[in-house]
Structures are given as C-alpha cells and as structure tokens.
C-alpha cells in the first residue's frame, strides 16, 4: 500500500521495507525469546525455545528473582551512583568550563591541555594503579569508589561544556557586570542555566554509561549489599546455571524500566547521543 506512489510501483521502496522487516525481526527476536521463556516452568523449558508458555500468568520465575537477586537494592544503588555522579559532573564541569571559557590567566593553556589530554587516556587502562589508590583511601567496597571514579576519572563533560560555553556571547556576562552582579552570580544565574542543553546531553550520555558499566562496580564493590544492576544479573546467573526461566525473568525485570524510560524520553535521548557523538 505505502509502496505505491504517484509514479506507480517503486521496487527500491519495496526493498526498503523488506530490509526493515528483516531488521525488525533481528532486533526483536532475542527479547521475544527472553519474554516467552520468563513465563515458562522448568519442565516447559525443554521444548522449543520460541513456543509460547502455557500461561502468561505464571509469575514464579519473577517471584524467585525478586526474592533472590537483590533487584530492588541493585536499582537503588545504581540510582544513587548515577545521581551523585551526575551532580558532581555537572557542578565541577560547569565550574571548569566557566574558568577556562571566561577568565584569562597565566598557565591557562597548560590547564586546558591537561584536561584535553586526559580525555584520550582511557580510564580502563589505569585501573591497575587506581585500584591500589582507592584501597589506600579506604573506599574499597563502598559506593564512594564508583562515584568518585565517575566524577574524577572521566573528563568528557569538560569538553562538552567548553564547546558550548564558547558559543554563549560574552556580552551577557558584561551586562551582568554592569548590573553589579558578582562573578559567582553570573556563573550561577546566567551561564549555568544557558548551559542547560549541554547539561541535558551530559546527563543522557553519563546515565547510559554508568548504568551499563560492569567493570568498575565489579572491581570495587564485591560486597553483596553494594550490588548494582550490571552485577546483580551476573551474580544471579552465576548461582543459577541453566535455570533459563529465572535468568530470563531477571533480564526482563532489568530491561523493562529503561525501555519504558527510553520510549518516553526518546526525543531527548536521540539529540543527546547525536550532540555527544559530534562533540565528543
């Protein structure tokens, strides 16, 4: 129907839909299999993996996961880490961008260079040393370890803010000074709000990164109560080898909240990802 245009049948357009149909299948097939198997009993599991379950009202697997996988704790720990890291990143990132973007001082190019060079040193390569450092600071096995690392070791926010602040006209600062506002007030009431779009980009990119991070929580927080989303499913699967129904239920529980969030915020997420890619 939609392939009919005024010019008549268009084979290229038809081909596009065929390709999109294949892609749709490829994207949705793995989650579909997880979805149907999350509702199956252990006996049903032996049959075809994509057969529908006998009943979609069998919530045993979900109950089991909620009981044993610390999902609630995992989400609340992840949430805490994300929020604390974001606040730190936004405050420190805007502060640095304000100084480097607005104030002239001796050694500025050195400071700027130090931050920019840091963006090309991958955090993951220095963990062998950072681990000993965190341990000596007494932060091993505490939420502070990932928070501090997400705030301190990743400097991409400075790059994003710096790009952005250079496009905000200096006349705005000057008009603030004519009104007698202090520099801190200019930073807080004029520049900070105007950096909002950069902050949105940052919030989206960092949230996705932190939520997906396995390495840092795995390395720094082996303690049971400090489980995050990434480590929760890993531990749970480690203890429940081959119990597919349970693992599928765990996967679903983890995926549903972010999928819903994504569907509501898609517009912002797309623009955040695009801005981040072009600037980062």
């Amino acid at each position: 129907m939609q392939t009919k245009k005024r010019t008549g049948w268009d084979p290229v357009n038809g081909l596009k839909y065929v390709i999109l149909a294949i892609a749709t299948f490829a994207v949705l097939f793995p989650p579909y299999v997880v979805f149907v198997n999350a509702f199956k009993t252990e006996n049903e599991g032996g049959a075809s993996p994509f057969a529908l379950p006998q009943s979609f009202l069998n919530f045993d697997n979900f109950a089991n996961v909620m009981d044993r996988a610390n999902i609630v704790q995992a989400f609340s720990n992840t949430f805490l880490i994300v929020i604390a890291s974001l606040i730190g990143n936004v405050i420190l990132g805007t502060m640095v961008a304000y100084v480097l973007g607005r104030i002239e001082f001796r050694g500025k190019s050195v400071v700027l260079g130090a931050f920019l060079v840091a963006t090309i040193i991958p955090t993951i390569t220095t963990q062998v040393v950072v681990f000993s450092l965190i341990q000596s600071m007494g932060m091993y096995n505490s939420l502070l370890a990932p928070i501090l690392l997400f705030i301190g070791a990743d400097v991409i926010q400075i790059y994003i803010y710096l790009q952005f602040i250079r496009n905000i006209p200096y006349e705005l600062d000057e008009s603030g000074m004519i009104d007698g506002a202090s520099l801190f007030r200019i930073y807080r009431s004029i520049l900070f709000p105007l950096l909002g779009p950069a902050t949105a980009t940052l919030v989206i990119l960092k949230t996705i990164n932190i939520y997906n991070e396995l390495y840092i929580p795995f390395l720094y927080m082996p303690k049971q109560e400090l489980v995050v989303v990434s480590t929760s499913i890993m531990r749970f699967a480690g203890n429940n080898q081959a119990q597919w129904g349970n693992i599928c239920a765990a996967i679903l529980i983890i995926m549903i909240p972010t999928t819903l969030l994504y569907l509501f915020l898609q517009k912002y997420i797309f623009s955040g990802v695009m801005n981040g890619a072009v600037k980062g």
Partner: protein
Amino acid sequence: MNNWSYSAQRKLILIAFLAVPLALLGMFTYYPAVRLLFQSFTDWDGISASSEWLGMDNYKEIFTNPALFGVFLHQIPYVVIGVIQNIVAILFAVILNSKIRGRNAFRVMLFLPFIMNAVAVAFMFQYVFDTTNGSLNALLGFLGLESLQQSWLGNTSLVNYSLASIGFWRFMGYNMVIYLGALQSIPNDMYEAAKIDGSSRFQTLWYLTLPNLTKIIQLNMFLTLSGALSVFDLPFVLTKGGPAGASETFLMKTIETAFQFNNFGLASAMSVVLLVFTVIILTVQNAVLNRKGD
C-alpha cells in the same frame, strides 16, 4: 563578594573553581599514568612495600610471549564485525532518511538495543547461542538449515565472531542514529539540484551522500577500532575467555595478571601497551579528521 573588585573575584573564582577538578584530574588521571609507567619496569606484587627493578623485562615478556600479545588476534573479529556494523548502519540511516512510513517507529526500534543493560544483553545472547537449547539453533532447525547449527560459543574459531555480533546487535542502532544526524544536516537543496541534474539514486548516494558523511564515518571507524582494543564485558560475562582461552582479550589478561596472579608489574606494562595503542589511534584520528575538516 559583591564589594570586591572584579579582578579580585577572578582570582578567587579561579582558585575555588579549579582546585577540586585539578586535584581529581591529578589523582585519577596523571598520577595513575605516571605510576603505571614506573610500575611497569618492576615486579611489584601489589602488596609488598618493595619491588625489584626489571628494566624492560616486562615489555619483552609481552611482545615475545604469544600467550600475551597473541590475544590481540582474538580481537580482530571485533574490528571486522565493527566495520560491517558501520556499513549496515549507514544503509539504515539512508533508508530512514528517505520518505518512508513509520520512520520514527523504525528508528526507535533499531536504537532500542543500545539502551538495554549491557550485561542483561549478554545473558540474553547466551540463550540465543546455546548449543542445545539456544534459539538460534532452533531457528535454523525450523528453517531446515540444520547443517548450519553450531556450537556458537564453544567453537574456538567462531566464538569471537559470535561475541562480536552481540556488539553489532547492540550498537548498530547507535551508529545509525549518529549517521542519521549527519544526513539530516546535508542541505536539502543539494538533493534537489542532483534531481534536476537527473542523477540516479545510486549516483546521489555515491557522489553526494557518502562524501558528506566522510568525517563521521572516520570518527565511527576509530571508535570501532579503539573499542575493539579494549573489549572486556562480553567475553568476561559469557565465556570467561573460553573455550580453551580462545576468546580471551588483552584487557581480560591484564586484569587477570594483576588481580589473580598478583603480578602488578607485568599488568602495568600491559596497561601501558594498551594505553599507547589507544593514544596512537586517537592521535591518528585527530590528524586525519583535522586535515579533512579544514
């Protein structure tokens, strides 16, 4: 603070705003980098107060022991699949940039894997790739393609391709969205002009669309390359480096060397090697992008 001169305020702000960020930068970026380099010449075990100076021995070990440097070979499939992933992403970006129904719905769906938790995705694919109960083998059986059924994660020559294809599933939509953003910034009148000149669809794609994407294609290729250098999550979660070490990556080896074998000296040298490779890739990237850009 209102009564202070602006130059005094500038000094105060300069110190107050830079102190903490610079301290963090020194602590978590530069100190570790320097310390890493120093440790890489020693045999430090991670605990002892003292260590022996080994000179270049650790580096010799890395480049001569195939069990160490050789694992980079396992990461080639990630580069191969990554390149294919970018080509496919461009294809979908072009398709979704044309007038087509359900454009936004398709875009939302293709990007969906990217926002799913990486570890959950890994376990999801454990179920896809499982030899006896896996849905991929079941699907092949259903299609009458039993001959293609495989031990996807158990076959030493296949395992890295299987793992890399999970990355493909997860990141193709992400690449596509970036390409789509670049496509949308190509002015529409250029396409109008091409149409008036009577250029075919293929000609438009080849001579107009792709040249305008060059910069972003290069950026994505370098991302693919530096990503392939530091693969960790997927093999770590799904295969633990198996079967028979066939899916171990250099970063996994590094972690293992440090935290299981307590050979922090050698692990530091391995980190330095990884760091240097990444920096080389990024430097080449910047050089290439800047040359083309200006």
